[in-house]
């Protein structure tokens, strides 16, 4: 492979009809004919025969995924008609209100109680831009203080449209590029990678959370896909820029940070120490962070110049700043900037919140709520230290592996298992965060053999289980029907239970699963179906009103734990570590990676 510094490489044309290898077709032994392996492929069947160009296929895919997203948007959003606090929709609307009307220095100081801004600066800028556009259309939507809890039909359309527009500007181009890079790397033809792209874009969990519940996760996920695409394209500097954007949009992207850092460090030290690259990465990352905070700082400069006072009801200096080991004079020229910086960090990382919120299918919540061991007796600092230790333990193996074997094929596995580690063990996790580990795991569909029964079944298992663990949340948002429709549709299209069992009947030679996996999957699916039946028809006993939710959490956590182990195991298998240890065949592998 050529070094990343080469500024221009001739573009290789994608082969449209290279022989298929990715598990999209199966051979009908009776008729000696190829047929689609699962229903999604059937929809691409005419395109295969007619060899349709990407110029038609891609717009059709994008229009279709747009339609499903927009139709989900028609349904209620979180907090719809639920005073006094409403929900995430109100939070996002409120951020648009406050960023467009208040001076920049007030953004991170404004009233925390009513959905204070607690996301990193890029979200604030995004809200500001959308708020400005919205103000042009109807200023009442974002009128300062007066618009709280507003539920206007046109406002809903506008807000829903901003989610889709942001997604189509960031997530979708990044997904297209990332899938193309994977296809090129694994030598997959354009037709099969289009199928993988559709499967990725139709992921029910992401659609339900962003377009049903209402959030802008796809912007963050899109930047992450861009980061991955840059790493796959051997452009580490760009990947730093995009990863800072990922973090700058939502702090939850920290789930990915160790794996990204380990990979970037890995390519600097292996196969030989590359100091310029290491320096470049460091400088670009710092510069990106500087650029991220620059508008905030410029706003502070402007406000200091105008002598805009900070709100009166706030603690100044922010706790984080008082915790600094040295004292800073209020007269210092950099004082206001430091106040802003520390306040924003203080808001973004709320260390004072609990171990977990609501009910989330991770280890802590499962252990606590299943009654194995109640955790509310412990001191919160002890719990957070325990969470930190366990998280570190869970992410060390994948990070170490990617650090010492910084290979592109391992990236999705490393990202997925690190994110699973965080989701399962870390502090302050929401049920919605499950879409973070899902993204790199679903990307596996676009890799070699990704749609053969074994990988397809595992990716599907994680996705369907994830949607299911979010079911209690979606019910609160009155999104029960979209949940069943979108999850059912995806399961159907991918040929997975409860719609089809063909992934489980394939023989080992056709890329089938081993018996243990089959057993785990099928019993989990049976559990999920039984749970839905029970939840719908059987009332939970009076002394255990949360029984169904707890059952959901426990089964979910167990399933996700297995997904973590699977990602880790596949990574170990793929990395050739076993060969290194047993047979000493590592040298061959290493040569290949060079």
């Amino acid at each position: 492979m050529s070094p990343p510094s080469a500024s221009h490489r001739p573009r290789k044309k994608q082969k449209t009809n290279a022989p298929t290898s990715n598990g999209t077709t199966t051979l009908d032994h009776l008729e000696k004919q190829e047929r689609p392996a699962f229903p999604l492929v059937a929809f691409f069947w005419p395109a295969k025969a007619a060899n349709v160009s990407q110029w038609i296929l891609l717009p059709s895919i994008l229009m279709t995924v747009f339609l499903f997203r927009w139709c989900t948007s028609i349904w209620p959003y979180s907090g719809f008609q639920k005073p006094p606090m409403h929900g995430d929709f109100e939070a996002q609307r409120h951020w648009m209100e406050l960023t467009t009307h208040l001076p920049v220095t007030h953004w991170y100081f404004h009233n925390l109680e009513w959905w204070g801004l607690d996301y990193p600066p890029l979200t604030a800028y995004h809200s500001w831009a959308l708020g400005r556009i919205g103000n042009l259309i109807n200023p009442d939507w974002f009128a300062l203080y007066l618009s709280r809890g507003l539920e206007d039909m046109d406002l809903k359309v506008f807000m829903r449209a901003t989610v889709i527009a942001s997604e189509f500007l960031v997530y979708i181009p990044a997904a297209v590029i990332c899938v193309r890079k994977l296809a090129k790397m694994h030598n997959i033809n354009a037709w099969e990678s289009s199928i993988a792209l559709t499967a990725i874009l139709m992921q029910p969990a992401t659609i339900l959370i962003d377009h049903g519940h209402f959030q802008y996760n796809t912007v963050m996920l899109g930047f992450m896909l861009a980061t991955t695409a840059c790493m796959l394209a051997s452009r580490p500097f760009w990947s730093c820029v995009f990863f800072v954007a990922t973090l700058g949009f939502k702090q939850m992207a920290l789930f990915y940070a160790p794996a990204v850092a380990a990979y970037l460090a890995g390519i600097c030290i292996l196969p030989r120490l590359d100091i310029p690259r290491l320096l470049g990465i460091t400088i670009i990352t710092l510069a990106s962070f500087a650029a991220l905070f620059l508008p905030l700082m410029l706003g502070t400069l402007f406000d200091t110049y105008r002598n805009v006072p900070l709100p009166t009801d706030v603690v100044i200096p922010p706790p984080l700043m008082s915790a600094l080991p040295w004292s800073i004079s209020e007269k210092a020229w950099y004082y206001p900037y430091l106040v802003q910086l520390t306040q924003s960090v203080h808001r973004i990382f709320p260390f004072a919140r609990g171990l977990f919120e609501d009910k989330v299918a991770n280890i802590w919540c499962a252990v606590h709520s299943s009654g194995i061991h109640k955790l509310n007796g412990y001191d919160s600092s002890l719990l957070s230290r325990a969470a930190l230790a366990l998280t570190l333990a869970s992410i060390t193996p994948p990070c170490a592996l990617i650090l010492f074997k910084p290979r592109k094929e391992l990236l999705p596995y490393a990202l997925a298992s690190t994110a699973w580690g965080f989701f399962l063990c870390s502090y302050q996790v929401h049920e919605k965060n499950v879409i973070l580990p899902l993204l790199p795991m679903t990307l596996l569909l676009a890799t070699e053999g990704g749609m053969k029964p074994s990988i397809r079944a595992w990716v599907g298992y994680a996705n369907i289980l994830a949607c299911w663990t979010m079911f209690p949340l979606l019910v609160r948002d009155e999104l029960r029907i979209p949940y069943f429709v979108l999850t059912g549709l995806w399961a159907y299209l991918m040929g997975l239970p409860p719609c089809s069992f063909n992934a489980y009947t394939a023989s080992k030679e056709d890329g089938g699963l081993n018996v243990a996996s089959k057993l785990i999957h099928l019993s989990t699916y049976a559990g999920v179906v039984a749970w839905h039946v029970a939840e719908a028809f059987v009332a939970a006993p009076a002394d255990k009103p949360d029984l169904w939710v707890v059952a959901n959490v426990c089964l979910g956590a167990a399933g996700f734990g297995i997904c973590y182990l699977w990602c880790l195991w596949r990574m170990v298998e793929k990395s050739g570590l076993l060969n290194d240890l047993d047979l000493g065949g590592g040298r061959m592998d290493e040569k290949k990676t060079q």
Partner: protein
Amino acid sequence: MAEYPTLLQTSLVATALKVLLWPAYRSTDFEVHRNWLALTHSLPLREWYHEKTSQWTLDYPPYFAYFEYTLSQLGRFADENMLHVSNLGYDSWNTIFFQRATVIVTEAVLIYALYLFIQSSPAASKKQSHAAAASILLSPGLLIIDHLHFQYNGFLYGILILSIVLARKKSGLLASGFVFAALLCLKHIYLYLAPAYFVYLLRGYCLGPRSIFDIRFGNCVKLGLGIGAVFALAFGPFVYYGQMEQVFSRLFPFSRGLCHAYWAPNVWALYSFCDRVLIYGKIATMKVPLKDGADLRLTAAPYLKLAIDRDAVNSVTRGLVGDTSFAVLPNISPRMTFILTLAAQIVSHPLKNAPRQQKLKPNIQTHQPALIKLFFTPTWHNFVSTLTLCGYASFLFGWHVHEKAILLVIIPFSLLALTDRRYLGAFRPLAVSGHVSLFPLLFTAMEGPIKVAYTVTWLVIVLLAFDWLAPASPQPRVFLLDRFALLYIAVAIPLMVYCSLVHQLVFGARYEFLPLMFVSTYSAIGVVGSWLGFLVVFFTS
């Protein structure tokens, strides 16, 4: 060999989308059908056609009322309250979900009919039939009218296609006639197609294959008795109660105007458009811009001192369901439209001096009007062509035509569009104009992107797929039909942009009729164009 995606796969994915549309905009037709559920459920039969608590009285034939009665029996389990006649405008979530679900479930008839259509087509054209079936199943017309606006067209057109498919085999002719008779008793709009059925069954079933004087009395009796029984079952009870006059006054409300509130894209829309332009000419005296060939006459209007009916000036643009009167051009009476419709269905079309290839292939039958051509060559293909032409005639010249009636043309034509490239040439402008003309049915911001994205996606995929699949035609191309279609489709894009964005930005809420008028005039040109194209193709092949 199976074609992918199969109808079942397609319908499952389409169903997923349709279920997601449940909470979307629904028109007053939703309340209309809820009211019918209520009145058939809670009132005795003899009061059905007299009931008028709601303004949306029962104006469909009896089988549809029976159908609503059957649904209401299930509706009890969803929400009892929707079944009270006095509960006007009742729309609980359960009511919405129930009614929306019935539309999806009854659409199974359409899927089954399309499945039979594919099964019954010869092996050589299986692929084409499959594509045509999928295009009907996913039709944006059905999505907009049934699953957003709210009606049961999927179910009704399913029965129509079932009847058409049955007519494909000699042995199915009788059943086809019965099914069509039942369809007439479900919704009487299909009366427009009855002439084609009449001629086809008369020639194909009641008369012998060799000579028209070889009358098959046995068949005549069977058909007559069967159809009589179907009608008796529908109207018998009302004859018994002596309510036929009341039933007919409900079914055929001739007090309605020539054009619907929003003009369906037919000849009368063009006529109204000309009238508007003439008014403009009259009022702004001599400031009519020169645009096309018709200008001389249009600009002449003020000079010719054509009388303007002052009251009529606002009538078409007011958007009320009522009588339309024309300001400059002569008014049209129901009888005139009836005669014109029938004439367009039966009488010879002005093609005597048309295409050149007639000289190459002198054939007596090429000059015959549709129904007569069908009479002399009663093939299934000619039958479906004549159905399409009947649909065209009624849509273009009919009295108080709804824009929704365009399905009466599109759906039979879809079955033929892949016959060869010349048919496809005539189908293209229809596919665009017919669906674009449905856009004004949905005017809410939330549904706007759905109708546009769905229709555009459907058009792109279907027109491209048809283009690949349509076999070459044995005859050379006619006119500049293909060029016309391309130009026509290209104009749709700026038109849509103007109507959905630019107009509002420039004029705000003023001149609201302007985009509607443009859409219907544009669509009317497309429908008329495709009609002429289809006539040429049909009569020269």
